[in-house]
């Protein structure tokens, strides 16, 4: 006798909680073969603003945590993701199509990407920081510090690996994030937030919105309390968003190539996009 499955409601993730859109709206998400998968929340301007408030509130705690602590939390995300591997493979395959083997490789790479960035939390300052030999009796050093609240427009095609590849480097250095998931393929992202919620990631460090890029992204790009924006998945809308971001001189990372191979070695570029270098002078003398 067959059993009727219990389906999941795919919601937003704001401040560590899972609300529906305050607008009460949703939109149907279909799979690679056109089949109905679920209704996802259609986030509004108000949801975006709530998410920024949550991210700002989480910033002092997360940026103030030791790098070692952040590294352990990110590694915990990898552990939790590995435990849900089968679920992610199902969802990525449903969203992106293709053979199961390819979806599985993408999920494995996404798990390993968290491990890669977990290892960077306490090393970036050792690689990107410096003691500067200034000409004079001064001790002078420079360190990278997180920029603040970073808005992220996730890649549209790579629903999970692309998302993790842009999100993890933002939070690894101590920023907090407001992420707009792939518009057509948002379900793996929502499941990822369930992992984040059970991985010791403090509420508000990562906030996830699902919905329309053209509706939500402009509000994030022009928001006065957002310090930087990663337009990875913004595509052609990126130009207008970059222009809007100039209002408070947000740091902007321009749209990624839509065909980018996210399995490639990520390097340190994304880590360094969302840090500020702080230099400290101190006299030396008896």
């Amino acid at each position, binding site marked *: 006798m067959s059993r009727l499955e219990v389906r999941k409601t795919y919601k937003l993730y704001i401040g560590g909680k899972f609300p529906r859109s305050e607008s009460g709206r949703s939109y149907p998400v279909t799979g690679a073969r056109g089949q109905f998968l679920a209704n996802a929340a259609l986030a509004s301007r108000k949801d975006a603003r709530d998410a920024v408030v949550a991210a700002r509130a989480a910033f002092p705690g997360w940026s103030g945590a030791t*790098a*070692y602590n952040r*590294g*352990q939390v990110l*590694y915990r995300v990898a552990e939790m993701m590995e435990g849900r591997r089968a679920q992610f493979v199902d969802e990525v395959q449903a969203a992106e199509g293709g053979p199961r083997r390819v979806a599985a490789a993408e999920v494995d790479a996404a798990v*390993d990407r968290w*491990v*890669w960035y*977990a*290892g*960077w*939390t*306490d*090393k970036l300052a*050792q*690689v990107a920081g410096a003691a500067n030999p200034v000409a004079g009796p001064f*001790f002078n050093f420079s360190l990278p510090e997180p920029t603040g609240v970073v808005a992220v427009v996730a890649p549209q095609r790579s629903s999970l690996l692309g998302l993790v590849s842009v999100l993890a480097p933002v939070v690894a250095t101590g920023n907090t994030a407001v992420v707009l998931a792939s518009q057509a393929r948002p379900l793996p992202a929502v499941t990822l937030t369930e992992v984040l919620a059970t991985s010791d990631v403090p509420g508000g460090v990562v906030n996830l919105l699902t919905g329309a890029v053209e509706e939500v992204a402009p509000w994030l790009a022009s928001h006065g309390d957002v310090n930087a924006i990663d337009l990875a998945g913004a595509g052609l809308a990126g130009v207008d968003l970059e222009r809007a971001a100039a209002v408070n001189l947000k740091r902007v990372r321009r749209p990624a190539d839509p065909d980018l191979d996210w399995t490639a070695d990520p390097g*340190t570029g994304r880590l360094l996009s969302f840090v500020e270098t702080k230099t400290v002078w*101190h*006299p*030396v*003398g*008896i």
Partner: protein
Amino acid sequence: MAKLEYAPAPESRSVVSLRPSYGLFVGGEFVDPVDGGAFKTISPSTEEVLAEVAEAGPADVDRAVAAARRAYGRTWSRLSGRERGKYLFRIARIIQERARELAVLETLDNGKPIKESRDVDVPLVAAHFFYYAGWADKLGHAGFGPDPRPLGVAGQIIPWNFPLLMLAWKVAPALAAGNTVVLKPAETTPLTALLFAEICQQADLPPGVVNILTGAGPTGRALVEHPDVDKVAFTGSTEVGRLIAEAVAGSAKKVTLELGGKAANIVFADAPVDQAVEGIVRGVFFNQGHVCCAGTRLLVQESVADVVLTSLKRRLATLRLGDPLDKNTDIGAINSAVQLERIRALADVGEAEGASRWSAPCTLPDRGYWFPPTVFSGVAQTHRIAREEIFGPVLSVLTFRTPKEAVEKANNTPYGLSAGVWTEKGSRILWMAQHLRAGVVWANTFNHFDPGSPFGGYKESGYGREGGRHGLEAYLDV
């Protein structure tokens, strides 16, 4: 102020299950030694025999080096950095999971207070593996070229003062960089290394990547001199370090040595006295003074010498010496009868040479090896207790007037491992740091360690650094 009386609060031993005897860990399993020797390891606080441990002879060293070489060629050097890193993350996690067991075992075998093994040693061990796990796939970012290569098989010899922590300092960077290892723990503290071997098994670490040979000096010598060892890493006495430097002469072996010290802890008149006194205590009485970087020479500015000394003695009188497993214990047992004899002899020399001796009033247990926290004042630079490493809870107090004099006295030693500076003036801290010939300078703190922070000495305190990005260099062909 009178010392408060505390009820005994012993940590349970039940978390540890000791086997009556242990073999050698070679090629991923415990094996009997070829040469058949064995020795006993005891608890220095009770003199109780904890277990019998195999003594590795030359044939065992051959076998272990061969296992490490095989693992290097067939598996470990072929794995991606990412996969090596994931093994190290696993090990870090198992150490965290089995933290209490490791802490209790360390305290049993070493004699150090449980609050130190539990709150300092074991957390640092896990952190060290976690830190270097993250480097395994980032070696190209470490500043040694785009694709730095490992060395091969590392022979590593560690001391008894921080048995598991020294293992972590050796094994974690070696494995992260892609080497395989043969490690010899100290003969008086082999047990946590053998438990670490079990952890490697639980992590499914490929056989032969980590090999552990228990034994004494001759085992270490055979390992150092083995022709198929590419790298020698040693932590221990300057005397043995010199022998190793001689032994590797003319070979292609890369060597790092972390040796003795006679650190100056310099207190200026403007330093907050209570804070400085806590730092002095932490600097020299942490781990019974069995610390190579211990601040064993207190250099205090003349104008505050009396105040600091009075306050220090008052503080020392409140330290609790006794059962290392008791959670309130501050000072545990001296690690061995041999070490106790060495401390006693040097302390007697201190008295004979004219320094004045004061020991904290505490009752020493009847069994085991104990030495009370002791302070010598009126010490001259020529006194042996101001020149030689005592490696016990003994502090020598000297005075100075100017910063320059402090630097001269601090540097007046063949050692150069660490130093401490206590002052409220930031520029003076940095000036002192610039002029002190020491590998680590602590300002307004002492004896702090972190996996991200390089550690190692100038002069006869050895060469090479462990910890941090710099610690990778010791295990890379650069």
